[in-house]
Structure formats: C-alpha cells, structure tokens
C-alpha cells in the first residue's frame, strides 16, 4: 500500500466516489476481506487487493487510487460482489473508479484505444473485405463493416 500522508488526503474523494452509480455502498465496508480472499486475480498478482482499494478510497487517497495501475487489474469476474456480506457492489465500484480515472486521463492506452475503435466503427473489429470473404467461404452471412447507427448515437451523445 502506498504510504499514507495526511497532508495529501483528499477529504472529498469518498463523497465523490459514492455518487458514481454502483459505488454507493462502499461506506458500509467493514474490511472483512472476503473480496480479497476469493479474488482470482490476487492469486496470481498480489498487487491487486480490492479491500485495500476500498479502504484507500474511504481514506481519501485520490491520487494513489486514480493514478495507480491497481484498479485496471480487476478481471470483472464479480466473485467479490457476489460474496460481499455487506452487499457492496465491489466490481461496479472498481468500474466507477476506472470511469473517474479515465475522465482525468489515466486510462491505460489499450482501454482508450478500444473506446475509440467502438466510437469510430460501432464495433471493436471492423469487418473488412478479407473478413467478409472468409465469412462467405464458411457459409456465414455478410455483415456491415461498420455500424453507422451506433457511431451516430455515440456522436450525438458527445
């Protein structure tokens, strides 16, 4: 855990996080560690610890949480969320933290690239002529390369 420095604490951080959809319940965490004990990511990478992350949020360690790489290690398997005795939506809290980090420009390049591809083409992998040929050869229906209706919707939203 990064060193806790009182002078760096952001007193409004926890209040900001609980306003994000999914993260509303984190103040009821009593740090039992059920989340961390069952986490399949943690079994191979001890840097990931959902209990610690929630504690850091509640302590106001904004920079350490949003600029650190830990929140991006969650595999979104929902094991912790299913088992939390306090009914905290832990997986969704991590996603909310990622959203906050992304808004401040701290998303890993791969995550931002995926978002851009989807906004540009409506799907992660554009289906080019080569793909189309392979699909036809396998007897599968031809699909549009890009989904204009989806990109238009996301454009309108922005």
């Amino acid at each position, binding site marked *: 855990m990064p060193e806790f420095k009182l002078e760096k604490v952001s007193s409004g951080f926890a209040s900001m996080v609980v306003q994000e959809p999914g993260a509303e319940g984190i103040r009821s965490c009593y740090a039992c560690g059920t989340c961390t004990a069952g986490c399949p990511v943690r079994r191979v990478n001890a840097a990931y610890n959902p209990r610690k992350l929630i504690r850091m949020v509640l302590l106001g360690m904004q920079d350490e949480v949003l600029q650190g790489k830990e929140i991006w290690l969650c595999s979104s398997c929902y094991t912790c969320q299913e088992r939390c005795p306090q009914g905290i939506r832990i997986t969704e809290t991590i*996603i909310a933290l990622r959203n906050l980090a992304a808004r401040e420009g701290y*998303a890993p390049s791969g995550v931002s690239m995926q978002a851009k591809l989807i906004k540009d083409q409506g799907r992660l992998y554009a289906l080019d002529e080569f793909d189309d040929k392979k699909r036809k050869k396998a*007897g599968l229906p031809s699909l549009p390369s890009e989904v204009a209706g989806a990109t238009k919707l996301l454009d309108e939203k922005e």
Partner: protein
Amino acid sequence: MKYALFLGCTIPARSRNYELSARAVAHRLGVEFVDIFDFSCCGFPLKSSDMKQAGLLAARNLALAESEGLAICTLCSACTSMLAEEAHHLEQDRGLLDGVNAELNKVGLAYKGHAKVKHFARVLLEDVGVDRIRAEVKVDLKGLPVATHYGCHYLKPSEIYEGVEDPEDPSSLEELVNAAGARSVEYQHKKDCCGGAVLVADEETALGMAKRKLDHVKEAGARAMNVVCPFCSVMYDDNQKSIESQFETDYQIPVLYLPQILGLAMGFDRKELGLNMNVVKTKSLTKEIIGEK
C-alpha cells in the same frame, strides 16, 4: 423458438468456429436465429472508460431487438451480461429509461423496456431441453472427459439473471455436455475467471490466470475443455501455446465451444463445426470420435 442472434464484436471477426457450430446446432434443434445486421458492439469494452456510453450502446441493441419483437440470444458471455444488465437497470429505473430514450430518440429509436436476453447455452437448456438433445445424439462420445469452464458473465452478476443458477454451484454446462454423451470432470478452481478482461491492462497477470486453470484441467485428466465465451477461448485456445512457452509447460488441450461438442455428438463433420479453425489442434481428438470426417 425464435431469437435475434447477437454476435457482438469478437465472434464474427475472430471466432467463426463458434458462430458456425452454434448456427448448425441451433438449426438442428429447431431454434430459429434471425440476423439483425444493425446490431453493434454490446457496449462492454466501453464500460471501463465510460459506463454511460456503454449502457447507451447496449440499450440501442435492446431497442433494435424489441422493435422486431424478438428476444436476444447471445453467444458471448460478456455481451450477455452487458445487455442483460442494461435491460435489468432500465426495467427497474424509470428515470434512467427516460434518459436513455432521450438519446435514442435523436437517432430515431425508442426502447419500451421489454427486451429479453438469453445466452445460447441457456436457450439449449431451458427451451430445447436435455431430452431433445439426447434424442439427437447420433455419435457416441463414449464418455469423453471434458472440463467445463463457466467463466464469469454467463452466471454473474446473478441479480441480472434472476437467480436462474447459483454462481457458487453451477451445473448447466455439465448437464449439456453430459447429455451429448461426454463426461464432465471435476477440477480445482473450476469457477475461476479466465483472465481475459485483464489482457488489455496486464498481459502477464492475465496469462498467469489462464495458466493456473490449464494446470488444473490437465491434472484432472480432461481430454478437452468446453467454453461458452470467445474471451475465454482467446485465453485457453489462442494463448495456450504462448502460455506453454512462457511457463515452460505442456498442455495440448483442445478447447471446444459448447456447440462444437454437441455438434460432434449430433453427427456434424469437422468443417460444419469449424473445428479446423480451433488453434489447438483438434484432429486427433475428433479422429477417435468421428474418424477422418
């Protein structure tokens, strides 16, 4: 049994073997798939950076299916949870539905909140039923030991699936695989995640997660693994070789999509099930079952 087939991003581009085998098996079992060519990405890959946009994209897909009067059948588990979750939220929260419709209206769409989303495995179990599957078995799989992998989003978050299956003690995939004449084997950490969603941020962690599972599958003596999600297949099939070289180990465990296993039992040939497109070679496995077909 008529569904709008939702393919998502990965399947039509990278997992044509899943699509081919699912269409073949569905047709044989009387499940009619309708293609909606305007379906886009489900929204899942956008969730980490912007969950509102992700939800909006999901809602657009739900609205398209609803306007055709069709329930959605998904093949990818991430698509399943993204779409089912959005449908669940929009059903519960009138304000959210109004907000989403304000955006959808701008592009000439509207969502009333009635879409239903079901993974293909669940359609097979609930709509078709294991008895019908058993009746279609033409080739004896002779109790082929198969390790079923549920992955995560096929079962979780359980609240969006209305508790149809306990994520701590699932059995649906075993029932289906056993109905086809294979034998599902128990193995340690069966419910663990493949690690696919970590790949984009930390490859080493992701491959480490997949490795752990492959170790247990091998230990249990399974001849094949069974998956129901293209993300899981990327981890176990596409990446199996690099895991073997990175961790100096050896598996050579074929990773088959559920309809590929069912399809073998139903007498389809390799090409009809896209088994030639699996990365870990399946030839010696299928030779034992169906000969050189």
